[in-house]
């Protein structure tokens, strides 16, 4: 077997090491979809813990963390009719690691009812998917309070 000159051998291994470094640098520069997510994903819920959106977020984050094999953290950021949490996400890096799970209040109602809000409900967000709806806002009254009923609600 031909012996390679030790100097050449050393420089060859340096070359190989450099090639590996360059290659890995190239790979890490790509937003590499196949790799998403490579770190914990935060789902901001602009409501206190315990409500309908929060409950949904918790069930969703648990399953997603299993699917993604990554931590999926629910961050409750309530306040100012959901504006605080929404604004935080609007100003977060657009890299898929900070998401906002919220209701129509943030995206439709608050923008109509407040003259000034800290975010733009259309321009500041990339919609991902609708997730759930309540089976309609329902009108309720005290049982037996009003009129004879043709259809009882039970």
């Amino acid at each position, binding site marked *: 077997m031909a012996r390679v000159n030790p100097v050449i051998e050393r420089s060859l291994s340096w070359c190989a090491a450099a090639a590996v470094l360059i290659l890995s640098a190239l790979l890490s520069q790509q937003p590499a979809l196949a790799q998403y997510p490579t770190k914990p994903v935060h789902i901001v819920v602009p409501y206190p813990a315990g409500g309908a959106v929060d409950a949904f977020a918790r069930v969703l984050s648990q399953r997603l963390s299993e699917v993604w094999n990554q931590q999926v953290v629910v961050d409750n950021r309530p306040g100012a009719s959901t504006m605080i949490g929404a604004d935080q996400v609007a100003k977060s890096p657009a890299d898929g690691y900070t998401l906002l799970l919220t209701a129509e209040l943030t995206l439709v109602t608050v923008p109509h009812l407040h*003259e000034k809000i800290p975010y733009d409900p259309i321009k500041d967000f990339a919609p991902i998917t609708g997730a759930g*709806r309540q089976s309609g806002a329902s009108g*309720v009254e005290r049982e037996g309070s009003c009129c004879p009923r043709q259809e009882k609600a039970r």
Partner: protein
Amino acid sequence: MEMLQAATGVRFNHIPYNGAGPAMNDVIGGHIDFMFAALSIVKGNVKAGKLHMIGVGSDHRSSEFPEVPTISESGAPGFEAKSWFGLVAPAGTPADIVKAINRDVTKVISEPAFREQLVTQGLEPILDTPEQFATFIRSETIKWGKVVKDANIAVIK
């Protein structure tokens, strides 16, 4: 509420509350006549017989209370008010990442066990593409913008 006034011509005296919980207590206590609330909030007291559900605001009856009519079929045709929620990312998030999240979230939501959990909370799952969700948000914005304008609702400065 404003939408129901517009659809029926009946005027209501709107009493603002700091949350649905205190409002519901006052409906049960007889201090106010009726309220609008998310189904998940009121369903316990409806089932317990403390509240009577007059109608649901969606365009179809609730699978959980199929005997309760929609408000639309009760004399306010076209009335539809639903509470919904969804997932958004900061603008500028790469489209392939948005698509990947959409794919995985909708996959999870459509799992039978997950759906069942939602339904017991009074929620119906939605499966959207990012484009469908964007279109939906825009149409809701137009719809409620009209309600706010027609009802001359004071904007908070």
